């Protein structure tokens, strides 16, 4: 084993650039300061009217140019902004990145404003005919691009000069982690020395909110938005829909060291396992999530004693937090009471396709600074979840390794292990 390969002889994968946007702000400095101060980014929704909606709060990103222009433009700007910061930090070229792009982003659909406008402009005997007639007459490809699944990655690939066919992916709420996993795997296969992995989600539309409401997944704590996301609390009542993005520049440690880059951390292991039980619920024994955590540990070459801190998926839904505790306590046993666990979602809400990437980014900052961000709103602990959730206030700690969990609808379970640069 050379210092550039892991326990299986594969290239070690370093992180050399991090960028992010959440409802707490643009850039990792502002985000990290807010997150470690226990500040919430959850607000009352102002982007659209909330009449008739059960949930009227969110963690939207309302301060970008395209914040009010629809899901596709905003998702692009979120991804773009995070990528500029990450590549900038890595010192690599901003227009000739030279490695593949993996983008986790929400499935696209034609925006309702465009749908209505086509309907009003078109002629035909029914809605579909009217819309199609107007679609044929559109003067540009702008609306077309917003409804193509590959467009955002295509534009990012063009701008940053990434290599080859960019991959856009979705593993629901695990997407951001999968984007990182794909980058790690490509570098391990020797296909690339570097990869750009991004998770971005600007899809908090009224319809998205309604869809999750209909599945009873969202908190309805409209009166006190900053208190609504309360992972691991007894009175948790759902997640808070949110937007954001994070980008990581991944590089083989060898090539990063060779060009003198600053190593921000190591992406040491990835694990996944699909659940075949139900579309939205986990297998009652937690076995798929347990298998995903164990696969990530094994991939990282660590045993149960090798993890210093868990960055939880921690959505604040009754089901997720219960199952996540079951999985973690099964894998780590008695020690689980002593391993600090916190949920970034208590402050930034659930950023869906971006969550896995944002939380990986925060995990790396946790290692770098030796500061564990808290789980806020932890006022009424769930007695069935006996964990050290780093309640309400950040904590200083020497964190050598982090396990970051991502679980999603459709039986998606993906876990990442990050570590300090080996000395």
């Amino acid at each position, binding site marked *: 084993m050379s210092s550039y390969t892991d326990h299986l002889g594969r290239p070690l994968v370093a992180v050399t650039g991090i960028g992010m946007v959440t409802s707490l702000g643009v850039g990792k400095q502002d985000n990290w300061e807010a997150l470690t101060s226990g500040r919430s980014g959850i607000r009352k929704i102002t982007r659209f009217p909330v*009449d008739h909606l059960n949930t009227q709060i969110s963690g939207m990103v309302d301060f970008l140019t395209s914040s009010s222009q629809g899901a596709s433009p905003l998702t692009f700007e979120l991804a773009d902004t995070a990528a500029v910061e990450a590549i900038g930090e890595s010192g690599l070229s901003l227009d000739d990145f030279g490695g593949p792009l993996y983008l986790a982003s929400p*499935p696209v659909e034609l925006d*309702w404003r465009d749908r209505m406008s086509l309907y009003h402009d078109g002629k035909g005997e029914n809605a*579909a005919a009217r819309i199609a007639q107007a679609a044929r007459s559109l003067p540009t490809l702008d*609306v077309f691009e917003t409804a*193509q699944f*590959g467009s955002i990655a295509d534009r990012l690939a063009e701008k940053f000069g990434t290599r080859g066919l960019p991959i856009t992916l*979705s593993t629901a709420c695990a997407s951001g982690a999968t984007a990182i996993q794909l980058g790690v795997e490509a570098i391990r296969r020797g*296909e690339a020395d570097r990869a750009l992995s991004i998770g971005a989600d600007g899809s908090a539309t009224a319809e998205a909110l309604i869809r999750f409401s209909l599945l009873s997944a969202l908190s309805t704590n409209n009166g006190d938005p900053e208190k609504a996301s309360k992972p691991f609390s007894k009175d948790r009542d759902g997640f808070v829909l949110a937007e954001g993005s994070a980008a990581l520049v991944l590089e083989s440690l060898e090539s990063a060291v060779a060009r003198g880059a600053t190593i921000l951390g190591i992406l040491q292991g990835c694990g996944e396992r699909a659940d075949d039980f139900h579309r939205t619920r986990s297998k009652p024994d937690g076995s798929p999530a347990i298998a995903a955590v164990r696969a990530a540990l094994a991939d990282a070459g660590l045993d149960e004693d090798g993890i210093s801190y868990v960055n939880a998926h921690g959505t604040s839904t009754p089901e997720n937090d219960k199952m996540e505790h079951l999985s973690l306590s099964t894998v780590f046993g008695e020690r689980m009471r002593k391993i600090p666990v916190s949920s970034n979602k208590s402050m930034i809400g659930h950023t869906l396709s971006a969550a896995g990437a944002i939380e990986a980014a925060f995990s790396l900052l946790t290692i770098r600074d030796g500061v564990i961000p808290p789980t806020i709103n932890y006022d009424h602990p769930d007695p069935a979840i006996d964990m050290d959730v780093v309640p309400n206030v950040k904590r200083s700690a020497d964190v050598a390794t982090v396990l970051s969990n991502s679980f999603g609808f459709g039986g998606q379970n993906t876990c990442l292990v990050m570590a300090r640069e080996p000395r």
Partner: protein
Amino acid sequence: MSARDVVITGIGLVSCLGEGPDTHWAALTSENAEPIVDSERFAPYTVHPLPAMDWNLQIAKRGDQRQMETWQRLGTYCAGLALDDAGIKGDEALCASMDMVVAAGGGERDEAVDADILAASTARNDREVLLNEKLTTDLRPTLFLAQLSNLLAGNISIVHKVTGSSRTFMGEEGAGVAAVETAAARIRSGQSNHVLVGGSFQTEHSDMLLGYELGGFLHRGPWKPVWQRAASEGGGVVTGSGGAFLVLESRDHAEKRGRAGYAKIDSIVSDRIKRSKTHLEAGIAKLLEGANLPSGQLLALSGASGAHAATAAEKAALESLSGIAVRGFGSRTGHLKEAQFPFAVALAAMAVQRGSGYPAFDSAVEKAYAGAPEQALATAIGYHVFEGAALLSRAA
């Protein structure tokens, strides 16, 4: 030969021609077959419709069928066919350790609810409030998941118990290319032993046609073969409903199960050609150079969509290579979007396995091919972006 060679050991196909490799082989080798199209239901557009389906054959529980829109049901069905074909279906251990990469679109919305909202919107100035009002009361709670991209893979896990891993790629034809390419790379490198990979597309929904027509890509007027639409009204694409799933395995893994396989994947190439700056024909030619094409006669299963610029460029690039006999299967199945590349790979594998080519699907344009193919090429040049090709050879 190497233990890490990537062999195709299972194929699951559905298109307007029917289902399964044998039915497709029979349909595609029958000369002068009339195209199976419906030009009425979505006029002025023509589609190649789904054949009659008995979903029960691959999705045993009615409850599962009800949780999916047609596209998901179709993909789950094709995945079942492929697993069956590979002798993996129902084998708990093999399914539990099997990886999966699905190329997916999604967004089969409730057309009646949307039409109702649009009709009401003409009389209202507060359209955003109208949306909240209608969507809150009229949307079926389960529809979100039934049309959600990664839930095709999710349903395959539930119905067929494939749970090693589950990844969904999005992005039209490119998603299909990347899915097969990634699956093959994982096997070659030892990251996977066996992978289920593929996609499906159900075009008989106004939003699925609209996805193309927002860019003016659909062909209008009388049906024509894929290479002959340039002078017709519209953009040249005629779509179809269908799906293609493949079981890919390492040679070692397949042989230990006593499976010879249809074909071996020699190489897969993909690109994002800068079509605004590069001559697409030259870009495709360069892409194919990377696939190490053999000299002499070569059968090419082309996924050409009919989109004017992309199809003309692909035709020119392929014709510049002497000895290539092109078969544009879009003339028979329609364009299957995310499933187009897996479908092309499946047809190429079938020809190699049987040692026989397909007759011309359009005898006015496509050259005769009388050889016994040792190798075959599969292509998917995106109607708008992204390109891919695979070269296959005999499995043994």
